[in-house]
């Protein structure tokens, strides 16, 4: 597929020349040049705030550029709204599946352009046949009469993709399409992307995941502070060089830091603070046992349906258990009650920070003290002084960047919101911290800070359970990794076993990692 680029460079499909966009005096994009050719897959990289999403919005008609010009097939083009861009052949796949859950697969694919019979009425039979045929071309076989929400997330994303390309798209922009997908689903997505490229469709791919970028993209455009800092073939760059470009630091500096910001990790000693035995819930998890000691970070590995999030939820009291017991410091904790779990010292950072974590309309202060409020109150009356004392400590310690504690939390960046969430739980003096994807969707800089913080908290004696879909985060951040598969414990990796190879082998249920296989090769087979 790479030879498409080398043999003869096809004409550009989509181009931006000197594009600039300013919001209330702040330049989000400055003189951006960008070229996309037919059949090309281009990685758009940059930290949060680098201008990636602004550029995408300019290309898809959500924003109009203040200066510069967009060219489509060499002709100047301007899109007043997203529909115009779609009609011009530019489709976008978003992080969250943007389809209608209640409607069927076929309805979703043909929304807004339903086939009609000669009376002008919708021809559902034809619609279903067409939908089936369309999906079959990508080797996807699913009952198109099923409501979309009954499908797995990955399949929903596939339907979104099928819809996008069936509108005669020449360019498909994917904004973190895999952030909620399972490894296996990602493979299918990549296969479909390959098929699209062979049809001459150009792909713009935005992702924080380096593995994916290097697996499917040939060229890369790196943005930093609203400017293009690099344009070229991806094969000419190493990962470290790419990260260095994004961060604007020297390669040596990045190398020294490793891929993640975790320092040394060690197993905890002494009696376990948390003991879980035989945690079970029908269809979700069965017989899961865990021991977590103070001062250690235990990774909870597993694929998406493996029960890793469910295990966290069970321990945090969010999910009612059918069977099993949870003891903290020798005391049994009632299942299915968040309040009971918190009282026992077990707290969880939920996966979906925006929907389940922050209360968007409240201030940083209110968000931090939310759970601790009864302790900071007397007879139900709140004490501002007590709140301020706590908020002050945590804002300083976690380096939360904000104008003041009164700032509304929804105005903060993802990384700072995550820190607010961590502060909320630290204010409860927890014994066990359960982290579900603590660095998802936050930029590289904040990610490093959060990772360093996890380290620091463990050093101070907190017991931490870490769930992450990024292998390197689990491997580098955890002293040992408990791997789940199909809702039960598959195996536990300790010490020198904590490597990407072993972890991946365990994820798919192989007991020993073949020594001669590289991680990429194992991934290939997933």
């Amino acid at each position, binding site marked *: 597929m790479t030879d498409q680029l080398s043999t003869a460079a096809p004409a550009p499909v989509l181009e931006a020349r000197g594009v600039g966009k300013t919001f209330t005096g702040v330049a989000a994009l400055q003189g951006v040049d960008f070229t996309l050719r037919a059949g090309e897959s281009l990685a758009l990289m940059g930290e949060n705030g680098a201008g990636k999403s602004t550029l995408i919005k300019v290309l898809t008609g959500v924003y109009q550029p203040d200066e510069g010009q967009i060219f489509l097939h060499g002709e100047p083009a301007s899109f007043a709204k997203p529909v115009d861009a779609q009609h011009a052949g530019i489709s976008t796949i978003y992080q969250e599946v943007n389809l209608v859950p209640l409607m069927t697969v076929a309805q979703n694919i043909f929304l807004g352009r339903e086939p009609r019979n000669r009376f002008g009425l919708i021809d559902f039979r034809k619609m279903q046949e067409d939908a089936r045929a369309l999906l079959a071309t990508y080797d996807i076989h699913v009952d198109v009469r099923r409501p979309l929400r009954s499908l797995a997330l990955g399949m929903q994303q596939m339907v979104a993709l099928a819809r996008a390309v069936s509108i005669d798209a020449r360019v498909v922009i994917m904004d973190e399409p895999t952030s909620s997908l399972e490894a296996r689903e990602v493979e299918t997505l990549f296969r479909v992307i390959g098929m699209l490229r062979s049809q001459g469709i150009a792909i713009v791919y935005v992702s924080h995941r380096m593995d994916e970028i290097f697996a499917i993209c040939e060229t890369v455009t790196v943005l930093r502070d609203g400017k293009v800092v690099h344009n070229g073939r991806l094969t000419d760059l190493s990962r470290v060089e790419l990260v260095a470009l994004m961060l604007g630091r020297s390669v040596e500096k990045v190398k020294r830091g490793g891929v993640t910001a975790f320092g040394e990790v060690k197993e905890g000693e002494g009696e376990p603070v948390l003991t879980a035995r035989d945690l079970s819930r029908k269809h979700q998890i069965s017989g899961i046992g865990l021991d977590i000691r103070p001062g250690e970070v235990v990774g909870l590995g597993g694929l998406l349906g493996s029960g890793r999030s469910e295990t966290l939820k069970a321990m945090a009291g969010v999910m009612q258990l059918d069977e099993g017991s949870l003891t903290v410091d020798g005391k049994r904790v009632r299942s299915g009650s968040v309040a009971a779990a918190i009282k026992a010292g077990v707290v969880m950072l939920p996966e979906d920070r925006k929907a389940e974590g922050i209360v968007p309309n409240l201030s940083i202060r209110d968000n931090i003290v939310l759970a601790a409020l009864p302790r900071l109150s007397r007879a139900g*009356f709140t004490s501002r002084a007590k709140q301020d004392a706590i908020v002050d400590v945590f804002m300083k310690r976690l380096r939360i960047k904000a104008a003041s504690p009164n700032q509304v939390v929804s105005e903060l960046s993802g990384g700072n919101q995550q820190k607010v969430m961590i502060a909320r739980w630290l204010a409860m003096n927890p014994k066990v911290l359960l982290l579900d994807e603590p660095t998802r969707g936050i930029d590289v800089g904040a990610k490093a800070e959060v990772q360093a913080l996890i380290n620091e908290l463990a050093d101070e004696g907190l017991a931490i359970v870490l769930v992450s879909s990024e292998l390197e985060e689990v491997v580098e951040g955890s002293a040992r990794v408990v791997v789940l598969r199909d809702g039960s414990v598959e195996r536990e990796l300790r010490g020198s076993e904590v490597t990407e190879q072993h972890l991946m082998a365990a994820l798919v249920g192989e007991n020993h990692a073949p020594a001669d296989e590289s991680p990429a090769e194992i991934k290939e087979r997933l």
Partner: protein
Amino acid sequence: MSAVTSAVRLPQKGAALVFLQRYGVYLAIALLLLFNLFFTPNFMTIDNFRVQFIQVVPVLIVALGMALVIGTEGIDLSVGAVMALSAAVIPLYIGYGPLPAAILAVLAGCLIGLANGTMIALIGVQPIVATLSLMVAGRGIALLVADEQLKSVIDPGFLALGRGTIAGVPYSVLLALVLVGLVAVLVNRTTFGKQLVSIGGSRRAAELAGLPVKRVLITIYILTAALASIAGIIQTARLSASVPSTVGNLIELSAITAVVIGGTPLSGGQVKVLGTVAGALLLQLIAASLIKHNVPDAYSQITQAVIILLAVYLQRGKAVLK
């Protein structure tokens, strides 16, 4: 549009718009008073204000409860029915004295609040239909309790609530002021108040933070019903009669209007107690001003409609930002 626009940082709004959003209702009151000062004879008198305050009390008290409910992203359409029920209960027990009768009336109203809260918090029914069903059923129950009859209430102690004054200030107005104060403290100074707005801001996040979401929600619907019951009692005292067929009719609309023009967004997560008071006052003053100028009631209703639209239009930017 919301999805696209909410992802976009809105450009900075003009200072004038922000000012209007925050203080529009107070400004409107000031302008209205100014207008009346020059163009309406006998408007700016103590007597007139006493009348206006007395008249605004029921709506104001109901609106206080409504503000709490709206703060949780809910709504309560049953407040009028609750007023009717509490009015219907009064004559049954007035023989035991005014206070026991009033307490029983409030308790009866609270039962409706409990039913609302249970359906909404425990079963997960949407507030609008849950309270709609109790709005319909509640008034029916009130009428059955009252044997579908208007009953006059003559207990002097009870009637004092409608007529008595301290230093020229009517009891009912004093009671309303106390309730405003209590609700303001509840919202701004208590754990409960913070939990209330957190639930309105993000119910799921509140649940995961270990807040007693269900308990708070049920309590709020009961509180709202209790406030509406008090309004029903005051209204009964003022009329010297229990009129369950008409008392509190359409009051839910006035209350919602007062809350909304007072700056509390329907999307929840905020409660503006003072704004609600101002909103109720503004509605009352508009109606009074129009009456004093012999404008028919029909037009005052139309004016009210226009004001709602205007107030919400000005606040639109805030809702989008959320």
